[in-house]
């Protein structure tokens, strides 16, 4: 059983939902990434999504674009990101780490070499934003051959046929993008998201994480009632942007802990929602 699957099963047994924060590796500085990852876990993260910086982040809004640019200015490469995961693993062998990035750095390294190196570094899942399922056959094969979960996006506009295409390849969880647009866009419609989740559960058989537009404990709590996992990216990057290297871990800790409380309080006060399995 993959570490990601085990995490979701443990949480389900506890009647809790997964909190998945996103940070960009190397932002604001490569030396701070591993400390920030430990901070996320201490503050209540169940899985970490670690962004691999790319020069042309087409699907990201301005906040994550800026994070990517800051990391690239410090010369952060995919190989260095894998090194950061390996360093993190020296002190934490439990929390799953999912790399999230774009296809070109992966293809530049070679899909098979990337998969093997990522496994060795202690990566658990990989989400390549610009690999839709129709272009992912080789990628998914390489992931599964190296005991990695390929994570896929689904959108409000995804048809049943597309959900089935994703289901054929996905493991770990699927990431449901709650609104149209790029990362960091406006508010989300919780009821509309809730209406899609049973269908995605039924088709994919894996947990559903919801992201895009989750900015505070209240929305995190509302999404926790309807989804298996809550993904928060741009809001955390904003906190990092507004911090100094001295207080960045403390500020990110406070934010993530607040999101955690919002989720636990909200799920605790409502009847349990059907889980993944």
């Amino acid at each position, binding site marked *: 059983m993959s570490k990601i699957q085990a995490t979701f099963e443990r949480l389900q047994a506890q009647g809790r939902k997964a909190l998945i924060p996103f940070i960009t590796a190397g932002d604001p500085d490569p030396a701070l990434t591993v400390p920030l990852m430990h901070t996320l876990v201490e503050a209540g993260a169940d899985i970490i999504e670690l962004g691999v910086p790319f020069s042309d982040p087409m699907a990201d809004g301005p906040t994550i674009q800026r994070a990517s640019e800051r990391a690239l200015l410090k010369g952060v*490469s995919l190989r260095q990101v894998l090194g950061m995961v390996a360093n993190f693993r020296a002190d934490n062998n439990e929390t799953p780490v999912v790399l999230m990035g774009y*296809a*070109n*750095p992966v*293809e530049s390294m070679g899909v098979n070499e990337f998969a093997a190196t990522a496994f060795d570094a202690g990566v658990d899942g990989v989400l390549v934003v610009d690999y*839709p399922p129709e*272009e992912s056959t080789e990628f998914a094969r390489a992931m599964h051959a190296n005991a990695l979960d390929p994570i896929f996006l689904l959108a409000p*506009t*995804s048809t049943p046929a597309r959900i089935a295409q994703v289901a054929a390849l996905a493991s770990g969880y699927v990431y449901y993008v709650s609104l149209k*647009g790029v990362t960091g866009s406006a508010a989300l419609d919780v009821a509309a998201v809730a209406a899609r989740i049973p269908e995605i559960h039924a088709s994919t058989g894996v947990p559903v994480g919801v992201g895009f537009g989750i900015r505070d404990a209240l929305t995190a709590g509302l999404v926790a009632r309807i989804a298996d996992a809550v993904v928060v990216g741009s809001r955390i990057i904003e906190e990092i942007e507004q911090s100094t290297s001295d207080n960045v871990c403390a500020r990110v800790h406070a934010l993530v802990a607040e999101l955690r409380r919002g989720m636990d309080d909200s799920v605790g006060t409502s009847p349990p929602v059907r889980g993944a399995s």
Partner: protein
Amino acid sequence: MLAPRYDLPDALGHFGPYGGVFVAETLIPALEELNEAYALAQRDPLFIAEFEYDLKHYVGRPSPIYHARRWSDLLGGAQIYLKREDLNHTGAHKINNCIGQAMLARRMGKPRVIAETGAGQHGVATATVAARYGMECVVYMGSEDIKRQAANVYRMKLLGASVVPVESGSRTLKDALNEAMRDWVTNVSNTFYIIGTVAGPHPYPMMVRDFQAVIGKESIVQMQDQCERQPDAVIACVGGGSNAMGIFHPYIPLAGVRLIGVEAAGEGIETGHHAASLTAGRPGVLHGNRTYLLQDENGQIIETHSVSAGLDYPGVGPEHAWLKDSGRAEYVTITDAEALQAFHSLCRLEGIIPALESSHAIAYAARLAPTLPKDKILLINLSGRGDKDMHTVAEKSGITF
């Protein structure tokens, strides 16, 4: 002599290993909608008739083919013929594609069109067509390019378009394309994205090629009329590659005709300051398709250089990548200095001021022609006129207005 049937791309937009649909799931429905609409339009005689009518009466097609006799004589070898896309309305081949896509936007009920632009030529062509069709038009342009191309920014504004400066990344064409994609994914219900070249996710490389193929189709007829045969080689500059794909595509089955794409070597391939993706790049994924890219060892896209802004792009259309690998087309390079020299030659010898982009194709013809006998024919796609380049050329010659 006919080569085996050429019917690429496949249903998912692949040209061999290149092309495809490398976008986030959020964009897939928009591309599926576009695919369906284009598949219907392309078989609809009314759509085709309207496209042809506009190309004739609004653009001024067919563009002539001109025998550059004086220049050919001076070079002393093969005869050089110019396909005069510079005589089109708005001064370049870009308008052919913009008309096709704007007609499609109207059919799909999208009242708003967006575009990316580097030098501003595609932005101007899009703004032109949007004005004529009464559509809202937003053009994304890198803030660096806005500074360099003030006249074209003003032209777009005169035509009623909003020009949005892009401040991310290198603040040039590739970043403008990223930003236009972000706009599209957010506003897809009322917005059509008019991509200016044969790149992007499927169906764009195929669709833009089809709209531009009028260049090659006319050439085949005109060469037969004027020379009673087809050229020995067709030469075109390649940035993203739309003018080259437009003239090459109808010639692909004519195996006796060499297809030569000319990339920008900038200050020289060895300096690293160039835009020659096919010659000096390696395959990767950018802007929705797999193709040759200029990238560093970690797969980050690198900044390009060319004296001609229209060739200043780190990728290239995926069909060119396929034509290179399959050997059907050859790709060569021309430096800034060689292109400028050819620019001046054409001005002085033929009374034609070519775009700096097209000057790369002209420069290669000037290199090739003297090596061939006088009865050989080179057909060059003169993709645009050089009025837009006055400032750049003057600056290179040490002149200020």
